[in-house]
Structures are given as structure tokens and as C-alpha cells.
């Protein structure tokens, strides 16, 4: 469970998050959506204290992160996975080594590391690419590596900051499929920040809409499933046609 209580955050006088409270239940897939600058990414980064709140409390998995020492916070972060829009992999490490890093940081038993890494890469469908470097992978493959890395330590929560925003629609759908599996099979609570409505519609149980650093509304939704994301070339044609109509009007 994730609980934010009256959390505020400013960047040099500018209030990005204005006393926001939000509770996300265990096992939920929670979307955070809003326009650019609405504060949705900052809100997500407050969950693992990547941004320190000026005020308010953050609680994850029953632990008040805002009360922890820096050492305790580091331990707590190991059970909160995170993936990013630009993947943030280590370019000088292979796929295998990238996943291994997160196990090394967590002091995972040495003998069991190899099996665990293979297991995670298998889960995201990348078992055959373990010796490749990130530069040799496509965007979708890089995001899979990042997901495997985040999963390696059996996190209870997975934070996703615009996970599909730099990917094609069909690759996006695949990544969302992986996330959906992580939620359903492994029971991991997922929080997704996105500006794409389709991403939110496809897998989220609840959605928080943000505007100007505040929560505009939180609504329950019925996930419509990833198959609903249109991958066909006609999708692009339609989008182009729509854009054309708007120009005409």
C-alpha cells in the first residue's frame, strides 16, 4: 500500500505539488495522468523519495519513508522498483550485468544470482539477449531490461515514469502487456505516470487526474485490456486524418 498525506513540493518558489493526499491499494494498477507540468512525474518521484517533500508524509509497504534514516531509506528503496521513460540502463554493462547490479546492491546470495537473473529476463521475454549491450537493443527491448532489473529484488511496488512515451504504439502495447503480467502473476502494485490516455485506459484499475499540482479527481476504471491498443498501420492513417480535419476546421 502507498499512502501520501498532505505532501507538498516546490522547486525554487514554484509549487509543483500542493498538499496532495493519495492512497493506492495493494495489488492495484494506478494511473496518474495530466498535462505537461501538472506535477504527475514529481508525484511519482515522491513515492520513493527521489524528490524529498517539503511537507507531508510518504508511506510505502507500511513504512513511513519520510521518517527513515538514509540507510533505512536505501533498504526500503530496494523493494520499490522503478522504470523510466529513457530506460536509464548502464550502457557499458550487458543485459545480464544490468540486471545483476540490482541484485549486487541488495546483497542477494551470490550462488542464486544467475538463476534469478535468467528467471527475470525470461519473464520479460529477453532470455536470448543476455550478452548484448544496450546500444544493440531496440527501445522496447531496453525497457524490458529495465523492467527485469526492477523486478529482480521481488519489489512489492513498481513505479513507472512514462514507461511507453518514447516507444511506438505496438511496442507500447507489448510493454503494457508485460506490466499487466507483473501485476496479475506476481501481485506487484503498479503506479504508472503517462500523458497517453490509451496507456491508462488499457491496464489501470484507478486513475488520478492531476492539474496544477493538485488532484483533480480519482476515478475507478475497468481496464479495457491491452488488445485495445490499435497496432495496425491504419491507426496512424486515422490519426493523421484526424489531425488533417482539425487543420481544416
Amino acid at each position: 500500500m502507498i499512502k501520501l498525506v498532505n505532501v507538498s513540493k516546490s522547486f525554487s518558489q514554484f509549487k509543483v505539488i500542493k498538499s496532495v493526499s493519495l492512497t493506492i491499494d495493494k495489488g492495484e494498477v494506478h494511473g496518474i495522468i495530466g498535462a505537461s507540468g501538472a506535477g504527475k512525474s514529481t508525484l511519482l518521484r515522491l513515492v520513493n523519495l527521489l524528490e524529498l517533500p517539503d511537507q507531508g508524509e510518504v508511506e510505502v509497504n507500511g513504512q513511513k519513508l519520510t521518517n527513515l534514516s538514509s540507510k533505512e531509506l536505501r533498504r526500503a528503496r530496494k523493494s520499490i522498483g522503478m522504470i523510466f521513460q529513457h530506460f536509464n540502463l548502464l550502457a557499458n554493462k550487458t543485459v545480464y550485468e544490468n540486471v545483476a547490479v540490482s541484485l549486487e546492491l541488495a546483497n542477494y546470495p551470490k550462488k542464486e544470482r544467475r538463476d534469478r537473473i535468467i528467471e527475470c529476463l525470461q519473464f520479460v521475454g529477453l532470455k536470448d539477449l543476455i550478452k548484448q549491450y544496450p546500444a544493440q537493443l531496440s527501445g522496447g527491448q531496453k525497457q524490458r531490461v529495465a523492467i527485469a532489473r526492477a523486478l529482480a529484488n521481488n519489489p512489492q511496488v513498481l513505479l513507472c515514469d512514462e514507461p511507453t512515451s518514447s516507444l511506438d504504439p505496438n511496442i507500447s502495447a507489448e510493454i503494457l502487456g508485460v506490466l499487466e503480467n507483473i501485476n496479475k502473476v506476481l501481485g506487484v502494485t503498479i503506479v504508472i505516470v503517462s500523458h497517453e490516455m490509451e496507456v491508462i485506459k488499457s491496464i489501470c484499475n484507478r486513475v488520478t487526474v492531476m492539474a496544477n499540482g493538485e488532484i483533480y479527481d480519482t476515478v475507478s476504471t475497468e481496464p479495457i485490456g491491452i488488445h485495445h491498443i490499435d497496432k495496425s498501420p491504419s491507426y496512424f492513417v486515422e490519426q493523421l486524418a484526424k489531425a488533417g480535419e482539425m487543420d481544416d476546421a
Partner: protein
Amino acid sequence: MPDILVQYEAEIWLSIGETFIMVGASIGAAILLGLPVGTLLFLCRKGEVIENRLVFTVLNLLVNIIRSFPFLLLVVFLIPFTRLIIGTAIGTTAAIVPLSIIAIAHYSRLVEQSLLDVPKGVMEAAISMGASVKEIVFKFLYVETRSGLVLGLTTSIISFISYSTIMGVVGGGGIGDFAIRYGYQQFKTDLMIYMIIIMIILVQLIQFTGTTIARIIDKR
């Protein structure tokens, strides 16, 4: 081999040896102290993991001051300090003191610049995975910037060779000193030219080795 080289063979080998000692010590100082100082400069910057304005300002100022001395003046200026820690200010061993100080200042700046090139997102990933400062440095920063660190060290080593030629003023010896004393002051221009050729070959070898290693370890 030209007669003049045969005639001075023993002295030439001795001076090459002295250059290797001086440059070797500089490289040691650069790696053992310049690398940590450069890393600290980076980590203490605004917005970085151990942001510390005081430490940053002091280190930054120190590095700038050392680097603003014309090297010949730094050597002379440091004579009392050298005497204090070595017992004498004259000779190859004593020459190591000013050379090490400039080496630390020189390489630390290049290390800081390399670390600035590590994408911010990689740092964020490290923090979100619960890495400590030590783990961020060794498992993330140095891994991502290793080819830059090697290229920086290569540039530094070539500068150290150049700095070492000045050490004749405090009896440090070396190829540069030999070229001045025998080649220039005794009007043996051909001997001086041979020494310059040796230096050119040395620098070419170092640059080639550095560039090759950097290319092999760079997987970006």
C-alpha cells in the same frame, strides 16, 4: 646508430629512467589522489548526491590556484614544502613533489568533466535502486565513464612528460633536462633533436595505447 648517441648512451638511458620515475610517480598521484578529488568535486556539486558547497568551493579554488601557476614558478614556490617532506629540494625524488601536486590538480579536473557526462537518469536509477554513495561511484559512475577516465589520464600523462622536462631546475634530470644541458647548452643540436624524437615517439605510443584501450572498453 649515430655516433653521438653511442657516445652518450649511458647518460641517455639514465635520463630516460629519470623521466620514467617522475612521470610514473605523477601517474600514481593522479590515480590515487586526483581520481578521488575529481570524484568529490563532482559529487559535491549542486544537486548531486552529497551536495556540499563548502567542500566544493574549497577544492575548486585549490585546483584552480594550482593550475594557474606557471609550472616553473610552482616548482620554485614549493621548494620549502618539498624540503619539509623529502628532506631536500634537489634531485629526482624531490622533483616528484611538485609533479604530483600538479598531476592531482590536472587529472582531478578531467575526472570531474568526464563524470559530468554521465546521464542524470543513470544517477536516478542508481538512487532508486537503493545504492549508497560508494556504490553509485564504483558500480555506476566509474562504469559509465571509464573510457573518458582513460582518455583523460592519457592526456594527463602527456602533460606530465612535458612538466617533467622542467625539473632540471631542481636537479630532477630526465630527457628534457639532458636535451637542454647537452644538446642546447653544449651546441650539440643533433643530440637535442634526437631527444625530441624520443619524446615524440613516447607521446605517440602513449596516445595510441590510451585511445585503443578507451575504444575497447566503450560499449555506448
